[in-house]
């Protein structure tokens, strides 16, 4: 009987994988539902004896079984360039194992890291993580080992490990793929962290937009409880708040409070969940830990670029030909990712902009394609890597519209605690709307009142409005309490800087001045 | 003074006695308490009534009060 492997990850399902799987079963095949390889343009991807076909529709089942589907066949998946070019540490099992099979996980290197950590003990485990150079994959890039050390050294009757799985950035799906494809790896990573810092309980906070990840993680937590005991793990579900991806807001949410951001200090490492010392790490950070423990810090640190060690699962999305997950050591250039790996735009039109790092990341023009994928290099170019998601736009994109979207997103998702974000984002939307209308602003009803003696009565030019937008961005960037308000200026200012013509400048601006 | 008030004073004395039963020297303590908190008129009224209905311990205490007053007086 033919063994057919098809992913059951949400993306494959959204592309019709269940129907395809049913068709293979109907045709008498044995179907194994495995994790996704991460080649999304090929989903549903069907693997038979190592050979891949995709994207497969129900109608293609017969031809594939009859060996009559050459157009869909990509040959041996392992050898396919998109896969072959990657350095898969975290996603080493992607496409190969059944997500909820403890058997598959154990047979493919699972639990070795935890066993090693148990053998080494807390201090040596933290030392391994520190030496690996692993930095937080959530966006801030803070060294994981230092955070763990702080928690380990804090005296408390209770400590927690919290996994931030509130992956809300557009163009990011690596967390989702880990949770849906290799959930035991995340659990193992958390168990190692718990062992290292002395935590007895852990939470995985998953956004409610990820029902499949929630279901898989809950099943995996139940299935592996005996393997990670006495560590106790629980899944918590978000409730539609992007800001809960901010760690302190996330902690409030688990506690059952409004997801408002907490001022720091105190750091969550010292006063985190329920006021106790807490490790808060992103999915990819924790998922990298089993590999590091199993293969050694040095093996991990030998890959990478500058201070950015190890691999980064990069997510390529938007208007791109070959979208998907591409895990590689830091240092690969943006241009290579977009043009070579991603194959340029799906529409076939020229690339106009690539947003790196989600809704709080900057828009980069092709002129930035030389930038190596590295925290510091992107920071130097007024950008950020964030969670390593790339959204590719073709030349039909209106960058002032994207700037408006960034402000509006901030307005929609602001927790409302700090003033620059709460009021600034709404004012930003209004301001960009006026700029997009290419109008200056005449004094309004209030300003023209005779009793408003200090208000400017003259019209404010487009240039004045753009200056105000820049000032607003500065207020938000340096004044906001967290990254939501603080980083929204990145997409806005980068759009304004690289595509001034979309904002009616420079020509209009000069004319106005 | 009406009989009702003597009755009340006797009730008070009995109540004090009941609450001080477990004192190391109950009668003396009760006598001391009554001397400290009652007016002479109240004490005299109660002492003047021979069948006021005092419990034995209260009666013993009142006897001590009377003795002390006689001694002082």
């Amino acid at each position, binding site marked *: 009987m033919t063994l057919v492997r098809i992913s059951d990850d*949400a*993306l494959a*399902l*959204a*592309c019709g994988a269940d129907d395809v799987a049913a068709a293979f079963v109907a045709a008498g095949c044995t179907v194994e539902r495995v994790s996704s390889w991460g080649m*999304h*343009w090929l*989903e549903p991807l069907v693997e038979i004896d190592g050979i891949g076909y995709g994207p497969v529709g129900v109608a293609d089942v017969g031809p594939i079984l009859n060996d009559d589907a050459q157009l869909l066949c990509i040959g041996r998946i392992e050898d396919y360039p998109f896969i072959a070019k990657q350095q898969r540490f975290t996603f080493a099992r992607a496409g190969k194992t059944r997500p909820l099979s403890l058997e598959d996980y154990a047979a493919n290197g699972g639990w070795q890291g935890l066993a090693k950590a148990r053998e080494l003990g807390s201090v040596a485990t933290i030392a391994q993580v520190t030496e690996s150079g692993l930095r937080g994959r959530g966006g801030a890039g803070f060294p994981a080992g230092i955070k763990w050390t702080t928690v380990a050294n804090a005296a408390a009757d209770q400590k927690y490990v919290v996994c931030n799985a509130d992956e*809300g*950035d*557009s*163009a*990011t*799906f690596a*967390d*989702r793929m880990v949770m849906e494809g290799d959930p035991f790896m995340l659990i193992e990573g958390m168990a190692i962290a718990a062992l290292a810092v002395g935590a007895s*309980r852990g939470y995985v906070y998953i956004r*409610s*937009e*990820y*029902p*499949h990840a929630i279901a898989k993680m809950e099943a995996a937590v139940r299935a592996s409880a005996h393997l990670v005991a006495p560590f106790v793990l*629980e899944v*918590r*579900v*978000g*409730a*539609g*708040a*992007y800001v809960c991806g901010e760690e302190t807001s996330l902690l409030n*949410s*688990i*506690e*059952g*409070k*409004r*997801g*408002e951001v907490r001022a720091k200090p105190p750091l969550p490492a010292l006063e985190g969940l*329920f006021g106790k010392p807490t490790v808060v790490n992103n999915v990819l950070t924790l998922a990298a830990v089993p590999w590091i423990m199993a293969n050694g810090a040095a093996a991990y640190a030998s890959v990478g670029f500058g201070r950015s060690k190890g691999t980064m699962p990069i*997510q390529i*999305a*938007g208007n*791109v030909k070959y*979208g*998907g997950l591409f895990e590689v050591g830091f240092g690969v250039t943006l241009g290579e990712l977009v043009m070579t790996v991603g194959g340029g735009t*799906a529409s076939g039109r020229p690339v106009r902009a690539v*947003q790196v790092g*989600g*809704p709080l990341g900057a828009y980069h023009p092709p002129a930035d394609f030389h930038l190596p994928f590295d925290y510091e290099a992107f920071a130097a170019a007024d950008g950020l890597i964030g969670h390593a*998601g790339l*959204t*590719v*736009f*073709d030349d039909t*994109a209106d960058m002032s519209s*994207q700037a408006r*979207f960034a402000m509006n*997103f901030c307005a*929609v998702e602001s*927790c409302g605690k700090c003033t620059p974000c709460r009021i600034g984002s709404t004012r930003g939307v209004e301001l960009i709307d006026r700029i997009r209308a290419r109008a200056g602003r005449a004094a309004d009803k209030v300003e023209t009142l005779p009793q408003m003696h200090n208000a400017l009565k003259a019209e404010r030019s487009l240039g004045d409005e753009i200056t105000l937008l820049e000032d607003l961005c500065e207020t938000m960037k340096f004044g906001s309490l967290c990254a939501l308000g603080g980083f929204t200026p990145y997409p806005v200012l980068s759009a304004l800087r690289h595509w001034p013509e979309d904002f009616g400048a420079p020509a209009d601006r000069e004319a106005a001045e | 003074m009406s009989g009702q008030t003597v009755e009340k004073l006797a009730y008070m004395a009995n109540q004090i006695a009941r609450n001080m039963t477990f004192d190391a020297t109950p009668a003396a303590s009760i006598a001391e308490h009554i001397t400290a908190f009652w007016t002479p008129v109240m004490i005299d009224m109660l002492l003047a009534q021979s069948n006021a209905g005092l419990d034995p311990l209260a009666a013993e205490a009142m006897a001590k009060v009377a003795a002390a007053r006689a001694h002082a007086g």
Partner: protein
Amino acid sequence: MDSIQQIIAAHAGREGPLLPILHDVQAEFGHVSEDAIRTIAAALNLSRADVHGVVSFYHDFHEAPEARAVLKLCRAEACQARGVEALAAGLADNPRVKVEAIYCLGLCSVGPNAMVGDKVHARLDAAKLGALVEALA
């Protein structure tokens, strides 16, 4: 109200049980009513202001019931890059379906995407989206 008490009881002993309870109440009743808030507040020893503050903070919880079927259409950047705005603009008004904006389903390489209940749909075009809406109405 018995059912709300049962939901609360099912989460007894959990740390920070409010969100899990609210999720279950929202799922069971389609909204979190003021009566439900009072009951939950009393059970968890919170003030009703506490609970109202939380319910009103999260987009997933609603204090009033929604009669229409809901389709959540992703309007985030990756779907924008793949043309969702044109799709949204072209979506006919349907009084029986509420089209809500959602920001990212994590299917960013195969957009435009939408979610109905827990079911996700990718590679939408006008025809597919129209069919989805029609199926709900």
